[in-house]
């Protein structure tokens, strides 16, 4: 058993990749065999991650578990460092949980070049897991970049009409940003005597980098990470990519890939450049709020369901970033919850829309109406996930939304009540656009587009599709009622992240003594008052 724990993360990363290799090597597989094989491979990865979760040291969630390093270029001190803390563990679980469902959901949607499709999915899974388990910046960055390639092909080959344009925009946009990020990360490593280990950089970087340097490094990292999140105004690649991608691509994009951005902001940008994070927070918070409202209003005028959900992601991720830059326990824990919750509910919404697209070959809201009459089961799931997405208490979305807003509201110097109140209007707009969509598609008098093969006029979900959606629905309900299961493990790792923030408010929020001590250190008085004024 020990060898398993020792190699846990390496295996986790290798599992999808090796399955992919096996998939390529095995000749003469029928389409359905390929599908079942990929399903089994992703399920095995999920089981492995569950075993990992069982052996994870939950009593000490801030410490890295399953630490392992594999020598790479010894001369430069480069190595593949593996390790997870509680935050990474949850995101690993989210990824491995979503993958089998994505595979299951693409069983019938993908009919051509099946093997290649699932191969790309498996490679993508490895790359995404790599981002979450990496403990040194080069390995991290390689995985972060590498996710682009499988997705580029998934969108470019299997997408809908404008897929090539979407793939190109997606690639260039995110790649350009990442190049800047990489230069920033290298600069940090250089200033710290070529240290690549993230844990060491947490200690070294804040000391070595001056305020100005931190600002530049932060800017460089934001260039890549904020594109990925995506933060307004760098979001424009997302609606296109989401809309044109095949269902599986959209689910992974919304479910995991956007979280790479927020995860990197949280685990890399903030602790490495803490002073800059503190200084940038009001601006980033403002962009987040603008993004929330701007994207929400755009959602309202969409005609394509998928595009609507894509824009809603922009709006939702705004909450995630807003909570993160509140730098207090509520906001940051809410932000991590938001990552997980958004992955479940928006991923599920994309699956639901994909199921509609498979049946009617259109996603235009004007083409269909009142589907509740012929597809009651689908309608149930659709309404359920919409409610989770709009933040109904009792379902998962609410927990993150509430905590991020509470955090932003409570943050004294960085953000504050105006941010939370403005973002709060996003909740109203969310209700408007989601119910607008539900009212158009699910309810109302029946209207079904003319389908050429005509075989799916009265087709509700089949068993496979129900099996795909049920775990997601169960997850939404469970996390809505029992979020403390995750929340309890988050405060300690988050405390580590804000440890070096100049602004002691952040840390003071964590100390258990009342009344809270809110002392501002390292910051000139003028800046402090300026922030308070914002």
């Amino acid at each position, binding site marked *: 058993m020990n060898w398993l724990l020792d190699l846990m993360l390496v295996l986790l990363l290798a599992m999808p990749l090796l399955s992919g290799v096996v998939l390529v090597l095995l000749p003469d597989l029928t389409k359905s065999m390929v599908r079942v094989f990929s399903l089994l491979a992703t399920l095995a990865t999920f089981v492995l991650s569950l075993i990992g979760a069982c052996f994870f040291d939950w009593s000490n969630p801030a410490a890295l578990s399953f630490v392992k390093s594999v020598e790479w270029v010894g001369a430069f001190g480069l190595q593949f460092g593996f390790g997870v803390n509680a935050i990474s563990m949850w995101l690993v679980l989210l990824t491995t949980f979503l993958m089998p469902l994505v595979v299951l959901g693409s069983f019938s949607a993908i009919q051509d070049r099946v093997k290649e499709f699932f191969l790309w999915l498996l490679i993508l899974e490895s790359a995404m897991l790599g981002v979450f388990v990496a403990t040194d910046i080069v390995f991290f960055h390689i995985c972060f970049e590498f996710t682009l390639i499988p997705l580029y092909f998934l969108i470019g080959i299997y997408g809908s009409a404008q897929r090539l344009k979407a793939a190109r925009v997606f690639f260039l946009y995110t790649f350009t940003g990442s190049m800047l990020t990489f230069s920033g990360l290298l600069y940090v490593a250089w200033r710290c005597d070529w240290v690549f280990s993230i844990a060491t950089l947490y200690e070294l970087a804040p000391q070595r980098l001056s305020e100005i340097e931190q600002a530049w490094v932060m800017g460089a990292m934001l260039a890549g990470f904020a594109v990925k999140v995506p933060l307004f105004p760098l979001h424009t690649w997302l609606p296109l990519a989401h809309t044109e991608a095949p269902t599986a691509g959209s689910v992974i994009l919304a479910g995991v890939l956007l979280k790479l951005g927020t995860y990197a902001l949280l685990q890399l940008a903030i602790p490495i450049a803490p002073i800059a994070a503190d200084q940038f927070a009001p601006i980033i918070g403002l962009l987040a709020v603008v993004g929330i409202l701007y994207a929400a*209003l755009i959602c309202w005028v969409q005609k394509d369901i998928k595009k609507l959900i894509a824009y809603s992601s922009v709006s939702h991720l705004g909450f995630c970033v807003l909570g993160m830059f509140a730098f207090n326990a509520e906001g940051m824990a809410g932000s991590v919850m938001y990552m997980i919750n958004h992955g479940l509910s928006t991923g599920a919404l994309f699956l639901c829309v994909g199921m509609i697209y498979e049946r009617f070959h259109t996603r235009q809201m004007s083409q269909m109406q009142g589907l509740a009459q012929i597809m009651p089961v689908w309608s149930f799931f659709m309404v359920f996930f919409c409610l989770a997405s709009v933040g109904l208490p009792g379902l998962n979305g609410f927990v993150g939304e509430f905590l991020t807003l509470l955090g932003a509201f409570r943050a004294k110097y960085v953000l504050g009540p105006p941010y939370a109140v403005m973002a709060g209007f996003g909740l109203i707009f969310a209700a408007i656009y989601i119910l607008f969509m539900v009212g158009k598609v699910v309810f109302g008098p029946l209207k079904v587009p003319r389908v050429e093969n005509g075989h799916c006029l009265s087709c509700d979900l089949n068993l496979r599709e129900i099996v795909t959606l049920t775990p997601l629905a169960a997850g939404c309900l469970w996390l809505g009622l029992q979020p403390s299961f995750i929340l309890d493990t988050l405060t300690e790792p988050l405390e580590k992240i804000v440890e070096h923030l100049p602004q002691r408010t952040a840390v003071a929020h964590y100390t258990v003594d009342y009344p809270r001590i809110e002392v501002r250190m390292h910051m000139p008085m003028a800046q402090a008052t300026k922030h308070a004024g914002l």
Partner: protein
Amino acid sequence: MHIELAKWIPWIPAGAAVLCGLCAMKRQLRMASALICILAICATFGITVLISGSFSPNGNDPVKPRTVEVFDWISIWGQQVFSSRISAESYANENPGSKMIARDGTDGEKEFVVRKPIFVADFSYLLDSLTIVMLYVVTGVGALVAIYAAGYMAGDRGYARFFSAVCLFIFSMTTLVMADNLLLLFLGWEGVGLCSYLLIGYYYDKPTAVAAAKKAFVVNRIGDLGFLIGIFTAYIRYDTVVIHEMISTVSATMQNGATDWKDHLIPFMLMLGAFGKSAQLPLYVWLPDAMEGPTPVSALIHAATMVTAGVYLIVRLLPLFEISPYALPTVAVVGAVTALFAATIALCQYDIKRIYAYSTISQLGYMFLGVGFLSTAGGIFHLFTHAFFKALLFLTAGSVMHALAGQLDLRKMSGLRKKLPVTCWLMFAGCLALAGFPFTAGFFSKDMILAATFEKGINEQLILPNVMGVIGLLTALLTAFYAFRLWFRIFTGPEKYEMGAEHHGAEPDHGVRTSSSVQVEHVHDAHEVSWLMNAPLLVLACGALTAGFLGHEWIERMVVASTAEPARPPMMDEGVQLHGLMMVVSGVISVVGVMAAAYFHWLNRDATERFADRFVATVRVLTNKYYVDELYDAMIVRPLRVVGGIFYQVDRLVIDSLVMALGFLPRALGLAIQPSQRGALQGYGIGMAIGLVSIVVLVLMAIASGHNS
């Protein structure tokens, strides 16, 4: 002794909701869902009865509120790490609620972590006498309405779906009234909103129903945002969202008088939530439209229980409102103005259910008026009696609809007392209570509110309460008039009626009913409803007539025993006592109102026409509900949508221009290197013109896209 049972009150209906949902899948099981729902609600009612004994105040003993914990929900913990067990333990002992765990530290040494909650909101229930009163209303009326609905909804396609949503509603509503912290209360609050959404849109193939459901949810969300901000502010002010902890902090603050801006912000934000849910100005617009839902839903959710949640919220958190000198008077003014405003609209409507909807808004206004002038007992008492008579009125309206195949237009029915004798007199009882006719339930509760208002005005020599009291009296007159206008129109005069378009209770593929046209004719003639449906109505009618003098002492004792007792009660002992006088005045007013209605709508209907002709403009404004819907649409909805359209076009252009830029980057670079030949001024002019044109085009595109969908 039975108090632990209380934790099942919300969860029995929750389980029933799931069961009913499962029943929806099998056609044969659909009928079972009604039974499941009724049994579940009756069970919660039974538990309420069982536990209520422990909370009834006996003599002067104060009744202690009890907290029942179910499970942890949202909590954020902060921690402190210690290297020695002793210091950790002493720290843990100093901080109640903290937990200590031992673990291996990074350096191999044992370390001790003490976790202390920063933010806690659990599923735990607060039980006190106020909660018990609310539970009686919710589960009692809920059970009666469910029994009625079992008959009313019979044969409907979504039978199981309906009962599933009703059970879910009871879950949410009981959670709301039992919540021990604001966040759980908010869960119930949003939960009832969801059920309201699902049930208003129950006939989901009707576009108007879908639109109404959406409107209800969105308008409520506006109030909910206020509620949320209230919770945030309360949390930064009191460091907790647990209700009784906040209230004890407030009491301390009130004594030492150290208030700050947050103390004023909290009640106003919570108020916004209350006004949204309880349909007060300016957020009342959703309630009349909510009548698109099935009538039992209107009775249960949109009259008796959910819409009173706002009143409950303020009463529950009364100390938080009292601390700000402006909060409660604002509540009272909004309540009184809404009461009058809605009553005037009700005068000129023709749709029975909409009249009752405006009446509900108006009566809720009364409750707020009472609570606002610190007559919490009056407010809750009116909530209690209103639950009886308004549920009765809606359900009898449902019986009329049932008889006339969905007909709701007052102009298309007349003289139905022979056809619907039972309904006629049941509705009569409800109308009496609504009109505040002497010795009915509404009479006592309305009197309690108005008397308290005038007492406050006279004893404290304030003008505001007196003005509001006069508005209340005027509203009472209008109420009596419109209540009986409706009753006389339906049941007196020559018998004539037109059938409506809906086929209630007739499933299209139901063999028996469509087998011959004769039977169809028979089924669709006006007919009295079955006794299954009338039995609960009888109970409600008894309540509407007698709950007043039977209940008012009980309610007063119950409310006084809870935290809703005003810290500064209106001077009860010294100063004038107006209850006796007020009874006479409001009794006379009510009789006058009824007589006026009798004259205009029974004895001399022609006079009404002449009267209406003389005030054409007024009538038109009232019939169109002061054009508030149109105003909101033009001021808020449309502009927002246009803005959304503009944003979208901007967004699209950015993508497209980005793609173009990527393609033309090399050429653009080449052009940039060449020196420009144009004059600088000219360039600016062209740039400005292009900018202007593009803005105009954007706006046009946005408007066009707004219109298309």
